[in-house]
């Protein structure tokens, strides 16, 4: 049989049973590679269940720093009998299947084009450890040890991680070391180590970190000075507010009194969560909520109020597979339209699209500034892939000289000097009016906030002309917003091609990889990553400058494409879509295939995108 040869460039997938503690071992695996200076990108593929169903952990290792998902499993580590047939089928030809050989593999499971590496993980743990729960947990460390020997992970790096993880729990450290060693020794004794697929220390991760987007968002909210968070648990956003709370408890407690400089409310539902956020924002506190699709639907009435009554509101939508309850543990970018036009009537909501944890952090801080500057909701659109997976990312950065932009808020002195305060007077002709915070001044600046039509002085009116003035001003504000929202990012210094590619959020890595691959194939594309809605002029210019534009997105209905055509009045025929909506993160291969199909008119069968070094002729010993 052929053997795969690749250095620092392959995909390992772990097939586990959820609730068996595999997550911690798998994470150590990825982290060790990261600490060896090799770019790595792990993805958790988990069920909507607490215990007993199949769960996978897929790690792409890419010296070139391609962090998008890649099709094709090079090494499968299988410890879940339930999913074994499927897992075996998903290994690429000549790939490796590592399994628990405590029980013999059934004959029907034998493919003759892959390598089987049996390790009696359970047996070894039974022999070595007494506690049944420990046995199960340490089994996971056995396969990590085996992998270490098979693909050359540095054992000391793993030991360091273990030591840190179980700080002060000497016994646990000891047991984990043993399990690790057992796995490594076994494979060294039984197989030729390392395999053709192997690692070698590099210096390719700079000062980067590995962190999930939800934690980064939570930290962003801390740094942005958010004091009120209200939320309702929902996958995949739950860990976001939990991270905020965790760090707030560390960083925001007054040491003198032990009192909190923050308040977190687990609301009774999403409607209440956004209501709390709006109330707090109205009253001058920075506040936010995080949710996913169903929550956005439930919040839509309140989002209309916040739009119309002009209340700064920050909401993170960690998108998951829709519609309805959909695929709650899979990723999509399918709330674009429902977020952009959330609520009945004429509404337009500001969206921002981070694509790395560092950007989650920055965009979160930016969202609070924008929301207060624009006095409107700002929706930070992330997704499960970014929010819940450990993503390699530049480190989080904060500039201490940065000030919070609280927007146009009149203080007591300014009010005192004012003749007549008009909450909805467009004094600066940018569509943004001055607001006041309750309690500021005894006789000046109080006004009545409402979701109904009103005049410039916040007085209720049913006068059609006053209504029109107001909603037209909101449109004017929308124009102003285009100058405030983050500008797109370009990946070329100047125009190189008549064809452009647009992406946003988590499709970035796969998109950039696709651009590289296509360039190698002679297809040059100009790339733009959009970071915000409304689209600013640079977005339009890019589209105008290209004859054909591909938009990559992870939903069925090409929602982003609709949005951009609609808002920029584009000719639809020039905008093509690259779509992926099966719940898994998009791959460069998918992007290349769809683009080539569209450009050439049919899919070139030879167009196999990612192939590691060609398989050598030597067989593994087994």
């Amino acid at each position, binding site marked *: 049989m052929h053997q795969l040869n690749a250095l620092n460039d392959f995909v390992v997938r772990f097939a586990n049973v959820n609730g068996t503690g595999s997550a911690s071992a798998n994470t150590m695996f990825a982290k060790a590679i990261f*600490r060896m200076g090799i770019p790595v990108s792990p993805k958790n593929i988990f069920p909507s269940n607490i215990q007993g169903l199949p769960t996978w952990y897929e790690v792409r290792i890419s010296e070139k720093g391609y962090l998008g998902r890649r099709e094709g499993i090079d090494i499968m580590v299988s410890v879940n009998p339930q999913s074994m047939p499927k897992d075996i089928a998903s290994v690429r030809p000549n790939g490796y299947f590592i399994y628990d050989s405590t029980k013999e593999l059934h004959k029907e499971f034998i493919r003759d084009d892959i390598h089987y590496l049996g390790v009696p993980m359970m047996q070894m743990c039974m022999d070595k450890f007494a506690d049944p729960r420990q046995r199960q947990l340490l089994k996971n460390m056995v396969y990590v040890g085996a992998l270490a020997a098979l693909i050359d992970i540095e054992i000391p790096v793993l030991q360091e991680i273990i030591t840190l993880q179980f700080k002060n729990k000497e016994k646990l450290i000891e047991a984990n070391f043993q399990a690790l060693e057992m796995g490594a020794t076994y494979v060294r004794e039984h197989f030729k180590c390392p395999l053709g697929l192997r690692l070698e220390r590099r210096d390719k991760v700079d*000062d980067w*970190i*590995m*962190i999930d987007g939800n934690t980064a968002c939570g*930290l962003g909210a*801390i*740094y*942005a*000075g958010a*004091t*009120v968070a209200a939320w309702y648990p929902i996958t995949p956003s739950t860990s976001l507010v939990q991270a905020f709370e965790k760090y707030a408890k560390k*960083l*925001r407690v007054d040491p003198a*009194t*032990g*009192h*909190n*400089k*923050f*308040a977190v*409310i687990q*609301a*009774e539902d999403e*409607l*209440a*969560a956004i*209501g*709390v956020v*709006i*109330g*707090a*924002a*109205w*009253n*001058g*506190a920075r*506040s936010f909520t995080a949710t996913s699709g169903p929550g956005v639907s439930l919040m839509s*009435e*309140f989002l209309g*109020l916040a739009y119309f009554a002009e209340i700064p509101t920050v909401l993170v939508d960690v998108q998951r597979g829709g519609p309805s309850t959909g695929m709650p543990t899979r990723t999509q970018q399918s709330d674009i339209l429902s977020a952009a036009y959330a609520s009945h009537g004429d509404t337009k909501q500001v969206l921002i699209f981070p694509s790395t944890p560092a950007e989650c952090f920055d965009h979160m801080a930016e969202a609070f500034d924008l929301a207060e500057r624009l006095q409107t909701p700002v929706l930070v659109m992330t997704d499960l892939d970014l929010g819940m997976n450990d993503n390699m990312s530049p*480190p*989080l950065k*904060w*500039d201490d000289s940065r000030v*919070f932009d609280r927007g146009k808020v009149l203080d007591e002195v300014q009010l005192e000097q004012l003749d007549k305060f008009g909450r909805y007077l467009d004094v600066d002709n940018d569509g943004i009016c001055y607001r006041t915070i*309750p*309690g*500021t*001044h*005894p*006789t000046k600046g*109080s*006004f*009545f*906030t*409402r*979701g*109904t039509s009103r005049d410039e002085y916040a007085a*209720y009116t049913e006068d059609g002309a006053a209504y029109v003035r107001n909603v037209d001003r909101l449109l004017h504000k929308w124009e102003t917003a285009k100058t405030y929202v983050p500008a797109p990012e370009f990946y070329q210094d100047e125009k190189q091609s008549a064809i452009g590619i647009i992406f946003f959020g988590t499709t970035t890595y796969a998109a950039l990889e696709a651009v590289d691959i296509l360039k190698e194939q002679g297809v040059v594309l100009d790339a733009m990553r959009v970071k915000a809605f409304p689209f600013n002029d640079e977005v339009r210019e890019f589209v105008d400058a290209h004859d054909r534009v591909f938009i990559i997105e992870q939903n069925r209905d090409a929602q982003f494409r609709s949005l951009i055509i609609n808002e920029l009045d584009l000719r639809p025929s020039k905008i093509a879509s690259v779509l992926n909506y099966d719940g898994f993160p998009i791959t460069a291969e998918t992007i290349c295939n769809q683009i080539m199909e569209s450009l050439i008119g049919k899919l070139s069968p030879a167009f196999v995108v990612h192939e590691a070094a060609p398989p050598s002729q030597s067989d593994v010993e087994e």
Partner: protein
Amino acid sequence: MTFVRPVFRHPDLPKNKLGYTRKYYEGALSTLCAGCGHDSVSGAIIQACFEMAIEPHKVAKLSGIGCSSKTPAYFLSNSHGFNSVHGRMPSVATGANLANRDLMYIGVSGDGDSASIGIGQFVHAIRRNLNVTYIIMNNGCYGLTKGQDSATADVGSINKSGSANMYQAIDMAGLALELGASFVARSFSGDKEQMIPLIKAAMSHPGFSLIDIVSPCVTFNNNKGSTKSYDYTREHIEATAAVDFVPFMPEITTQYAEGDSISVPLHDGSLVHLNKLAHDWDPLDRHSAMNRLYEAKSTGEILTGLIFIDVEAPELHGILKTVEKPLNRLNKDELCPGEQVLKTINAGFR
């Protein structure tokens, strides 16, 4: 339009401790129907705030949607007001309160607003013991949408179109008691004497203070057969006690007789004095209050007055242990951990 106020006011009008006249506490002209109970409640709020010498700009008034929810526009025009969306005032009030614990919060709602679409938020605001004076202007119907039965309409109560309600009524006071509310009162828009001290006590009570006020809808639910009409209410009313509110003063001069009178000291030093009319009832004991209420209901009485008070229950800020300084006044230095800390955090993720 309920009343047209005279423009001219006598300069000798009484002033409160802060030197303001009652007019200072008024709001815009009401656009409710002439005779609507809600306007009397607004009047009582104005009077209570005036007498307590509250700074209006230190009050935030919030509401949902409905005739009742319009009333915050008709009192305290120097207060910020927030007429939010239908049934969701409690959450907005929760957020507002979290942002600034130093203001006083008055939440106004209707029975449609609180007992139907908003019942979930009502229940959970109680659970959190949110520090708000929560006034339900309860008319047993949906005034603003023209008189449909609400969830507080009693079984058998006959509405304007002549049909009898067949569904169980939700007793907002009973519900609040069951849920552990720390201040539960009921009143009647026709009984100013009672409403004013109750509103004062509610405003002084740190925690969720419910005043469920029967406030007849003259246009849609004041007919014969309605159990929320003026006449019916007046005939069936039964007060727990004569209520008196004594604001905190260094030396308390008022003297009360022993026996059936009881003085409840509030957190801010003021006193609620109750001259009990019901005898086997202890306003400090939840079970006793539940029993009294249940009995009244069984005999068709509308029990009014202060029904229950728990002066010890921690309010939301106590539960959350938030700092004394209002969250909305904390500045960047107090909130942002800074560059250096972030470096350490980054290090933890390598």
